């Protein structure tokens, strides 16, 4: 995996339904400045900038990195724009890390954002070309049948999704940047909300957020402050329309995890990983990804969730930040997972810090659960 790479700065905006007080550049800038401040650096110290976001249709600005070059201090520098659907935030971190691992740069600023309030996510995600036969209504309409199939195969009881919805929102109450903060969130509250795409209830769904997240990545020789060392990086993609594709437990996710665990020396993820930030936009994806990522045997993921193992005080906390279920600026959501993993091993996660976290997984997925991006970060230099 090339040269050593570390996260030395993390910056986030507060996530909210509509950031009325800033422009698109102002939003992105806010996260970037906080990441620079965290690293104790200025714009001059940055060699290159990598921008990620989901489809340009969200803001109606094509290739916005061109316009954002000024706001990100990129004039005279290399700048890249990544787009890999929902996994893009994770891919953006990996493209930035790659520039350091490949020995091309010493310090790279990675930024991902979405200002979803400029339009409407369901409109942007459900826009199809003529003749297309697709009958998918937004992301929930796409993923609901795969959740149903998971429930059938595993025999998981109906309340598992509710447990995740409650747990992640409880964690969000400890995260100052989180969007959805629902004091007193409870199973009854979740179960009283309507089914949107059965079996997905309203409160088992991620919100639509404005927000940005940024990280400063560094080579070993350019480290400032408290580093989170990158222990492994991997991307995997698989075709959406492959006959016999397992949409519940996709091979791409399994292969991506195996690759990143091999690099990081993880033999048993549940034992060897202290905390995981995993892309869970609909509550049922926690038990599904627990199995896909090897934290539980096939069909057993829901038991881990039910036992409380993935809660903040469990033996393997998942989404201590509140996760995608609590904050979802789509293009940034993956990068937030990667950044929260880094905050944990740097010991800088504040109220939602997992005590003694030394190794953390950051995960993102996108498309029809076909694009995967993952990294492992740790407090000890590899």
């Amino acid at each position: 995996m090339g040269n050593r790479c570390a996260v030395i700065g993390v910056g986030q905006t507060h996530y909210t339904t509509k950031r009325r007080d800033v422009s698109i550049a102002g939003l992105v800038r806010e996260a970037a400045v906080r990441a620079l401040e965290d690293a104790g650096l200025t714009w001059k110290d940055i060699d290159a900038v990598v921008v990620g976001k989901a489809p340009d249709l969200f803001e109606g600005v094509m290739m916005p990195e061109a316009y954002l070059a000024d706001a990100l201090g990129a004039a005279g520098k290399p700048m890249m724009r990544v787009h890999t659907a929902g996994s893009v935030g994770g891919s953006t971190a990996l493209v930035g890390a790659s520039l350091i691992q490949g020995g091309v740069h010493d310090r790279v600023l990675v930024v991902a954002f979405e200002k979803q309030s400029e339009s409407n996510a369901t409109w942007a995600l459900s826009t199809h070309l003529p003749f297309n036969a697709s009958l998918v209504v937004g992301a929930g309409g796409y993923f609901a049948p795969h959740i149903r199939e998971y429930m059938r195969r595993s025999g998981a009881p109906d309340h598992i999704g509710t447990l995740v919805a409650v747990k992640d929102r409880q964690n969000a109450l400890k995260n100052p940047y989180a969007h959805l903060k629902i004091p007193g969130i409870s199973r009854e509250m979740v179960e009283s909300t309507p089914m949107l795409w059965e079996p997905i209830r309203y409160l088992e769904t991620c919100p639509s957020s404005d927000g940005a997240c940024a990280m400063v990545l560094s080579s070993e020789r350019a480290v400032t402050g408290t580093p989170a060392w990158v222990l492994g990086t991997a991307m995997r993609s698989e075709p959406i329309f492959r006959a016999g594709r397992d949409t519940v437990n996709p091979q791409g996710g399994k292969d991506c995890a195996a690759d990143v665990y091999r690099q990081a020396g993880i033999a048993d993820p549940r034992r060897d990983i202290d905390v995981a930030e995993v892309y869970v936009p609909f509550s049922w994806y926690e038990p599904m990804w627990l199995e896909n990522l090897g934290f539980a045997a096939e069909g057993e993921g829901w038991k881990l969730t039910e036992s409380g193992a993935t809660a903040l005080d469990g033996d393997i906390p998942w989404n201590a930040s509140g996760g995608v279920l609590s904050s979802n600026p789509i293009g940034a959501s993956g990068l937030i997972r990667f950044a929260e993993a880094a905050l944990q091993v740097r010991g800088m996660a504040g109220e939602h810090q997992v005590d003694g976290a030394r190794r953390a997984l950051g995960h993102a997925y996108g498309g029809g659960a076909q694009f995967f991006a993952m990294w492992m970060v740790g407090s000890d230099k590899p």
Partner: protein
Amino acid sequence: MREIAVIAFAQTRHSATDEGLTEPELILPVLDEVRERSGLRTFGFTCSGSCDYLAGAPFSFVSALDALGAWPPISESHVEMDAAWALYEAWVRLQHGDVDSALIYGFGKSSQGDLREIMTLQLDPYYLAPLGLDQVSFAALQATASGAERAELDEIVRRSRAAGRDNPYALDLPDPEGDAFEVEPLRPYDIAPITDGAAAVVLAAGDLARELCERPAWITGIAHRIDPHYLGMRDLARSASAAEAARAAGVGKGHVDVAELHVQFSHEEPILRRALELPESTVVNPSGGPLAANPVMATGLIRIGEAARRIMDGTAGRTVAHATGGPCLQHNLVTVMEG
């Protein structure tokens, strides 16, 4: 840096009109061709470049993946940029040392929409896009600022179109004539033609490149830089970022036999020649360049492929490829290749 070379290149026979193929259907034969030429069926890394607004729907790259045969799952990424930057990302990935080959492809169908207006959408969304400032109009502003002479521009177009007629992949366009302006000072023929097409390149490292290719086009320098965006806050007569990228890539370290430049408007050629400090003896755009075929999102990658091809076929020893993005040559990537 690790030795990396272009070992295979393929492109569609580009078309001025919609031939009824979807983007995945366009790239399929091109992928077959580079697999055959390189002898590789699988690659350590794959990266592509495309644009949702060109396609008219989000996630244009998702269905393209189904044309690839990405099974078992592949290590893959995508840039919402010209595929030349996908090649840059792949070159960086190959520097890690754990994988030795990469597949890069780009595709676009400009025929489906109105390219002039689609390109408006990449402008500052507060001050420029709401003016409806279209691509030909902002290019014309740069043409005036650059002070190019009409005779020089005519000669650039005449030379590019003649070269394009000799290039089986480019469009057959007549010698320029007529004195109407599209947007003054640009005449219709100063503008790259609307084109549908796709292209693919295979990169390989060190011994694998030598094993698979008789004359690999070794990448001895590759760099890119971006300029500030707003058109009134940079000197449109020159491209500072192209000049800086050229210096970083080491263009001036030897004689350049051939340069393939991403010239979408004739006046961009003299701006780029100056930025890259190319001497008169350098042959510019022997393929005809984008003025003879401009499949947007693949055009920059094709420059790298065409410049590499001259080395692989033994007709040049040292070549340069240039790719651009953003309005008025805002963002520029320069690649130097040697035999």
